């Protein structure tokens, strides 16, 4: 097990005041809240911050942790000292009981929490449902077109007969239905945090996101294709072959006189469904480089033959 430096996690010094800890926590919670944050590791960070705060905001826990932490550094191998004993007073953090926190937290405070729960037969001993968990699941757009299985490994808390919590990596094979869209949630009942004292486990929600693709992006059911064309293809019109994310080859007619930004619709070739979405090819005119004498001379001929001022509307 690795030692966790809760001060470093919150970015504060070891002599920070309780006020400062609280203020920093509020700020970090807003920054890394998984529903608000755009950081990729927001969920992990949010959990870490909550765990650090749970220890540092309570004077007893903080003092016990401080004694332990002196001389230790984050990431170093850690075993609790044989004389480690912590008595719990006050409220028991709900997240801790549900195994949301790390095994490090559990080792330090888990037994004490259970002892306290044993002394006070309270709300704590009633069956309690586990919390729901939410994760973003990035899948390939191609997978949404054909449907299939996506494998995900996630660390799940498990509670043994003594009520001890340990995290285990679980591999889930998740069925991705054909035509799934970004932002849709897949609900996996009972795969959230475990319940307590016989309470049911929470649910796991997976929010679908598509991995960034170099030339496709989806908006709802519709899919956009960034399609480069040459100036002469755009000007004269042509037929090009495009491939959908579902690997179907289609002939696309580019009308003469097209420009960058023109959207050409391929009806029903977006994400499958009832009704299916459309596929839009968005043209982007790309000029070949003038990197040799012949190309330069042809560009010059073109400039002379077709006088053209694209900035005419700017009156320049």
């Amino acid at each position, binding site marked *: 097990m690795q030692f966790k430096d809760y001060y470093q996690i919150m970015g504060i010094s070891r002599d920070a005041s309780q006020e400062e800890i609280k203020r920093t926590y509020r700020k970090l919670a807003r920054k890394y809240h998984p529903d608000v944050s755009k950081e990729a590791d927001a969920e992990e960070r949010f959990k870490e911050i909550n765990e650090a705060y749970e220890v540092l905001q309570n004077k007893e826990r903080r003092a016990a942790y401080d004694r332990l932490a002196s001389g230790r550094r984050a990431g170093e191998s850690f075993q609790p000292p044989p004389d480690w004993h912590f008595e719990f007073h006050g409220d028991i953090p709900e997240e801790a009981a549900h195994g949301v926190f790390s095994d490090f937290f559990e080792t330090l405070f888990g037994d004490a929490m259970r002892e306290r729960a044993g002394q006070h037969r309270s709300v704590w001993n009633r069956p309690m449902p586990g919390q729901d968990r939410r994760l973003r699941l990035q899948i390939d757009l191609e997978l949404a077109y054909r449907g299939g299985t996506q494998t995900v490994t996630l660390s799940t808390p498990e509670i043994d007969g003594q009520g001890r919590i340990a995290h285990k990596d679980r591999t*889930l094979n998740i069925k991705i*239905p054909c035509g799934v869209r970004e932002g849709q949630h897949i609900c996996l009942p009972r795969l959230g945090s475990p319940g307590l004292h016989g309470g049911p486990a929470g649910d796991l929600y997976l929010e679908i996101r598509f991995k960034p693709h170099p030339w496709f992006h989806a908006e709802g059911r519709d899919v956009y294709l960034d399609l480069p064309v040459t100036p002469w293809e755009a000007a004269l019109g042509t037929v090009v072959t495009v491939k959908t994310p579902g690997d179907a080859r289609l002939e696309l007619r580019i009308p003469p006189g097209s420009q960058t930004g023109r959207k050409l619709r391929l009806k029903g070739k977006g994400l499958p469904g009832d009704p299916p979405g459309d596929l839009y090819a968005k043209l982007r005119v790309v000029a070949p480089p003038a990197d040799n004498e012949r190309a330069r001379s042809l560009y010059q001929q073109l400039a002379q033959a077709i006088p053209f001022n694209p900035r005419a509307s700017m009156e320049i």
Partner: protein
Amino acid sequence: MPDNAIVVTQELVLDEQLRYSLVEVCDYCRIGRDDIMEMIEEGIAEPEGSSWEDWRFSARALKRLQLALRLQRDLRVNAAGAALALDLLEELEQLRRHAQDTRHLS
């Protein structure tokens, strides 16, 4: 099969076409009717139907209610604050998409 593998078969896509009753929404959100009512008053969700007995909630409404609850629990905002945050988050999401789209073209 390794012992840590679970094959998931029991899954449910929260599709836009599905509609949920007030009882189902309470169940999904694990809160009571009054808390849902308060969030509806703040405009966090707009159920279809004239009276609460025949309210029907869309998947989007359900998602917004759940998100608002998490914001209230984790960031200590009230229902009105959560409603504001939700609207701003949606706008931000649209702007990010738009920015991504424009980057695509340049």
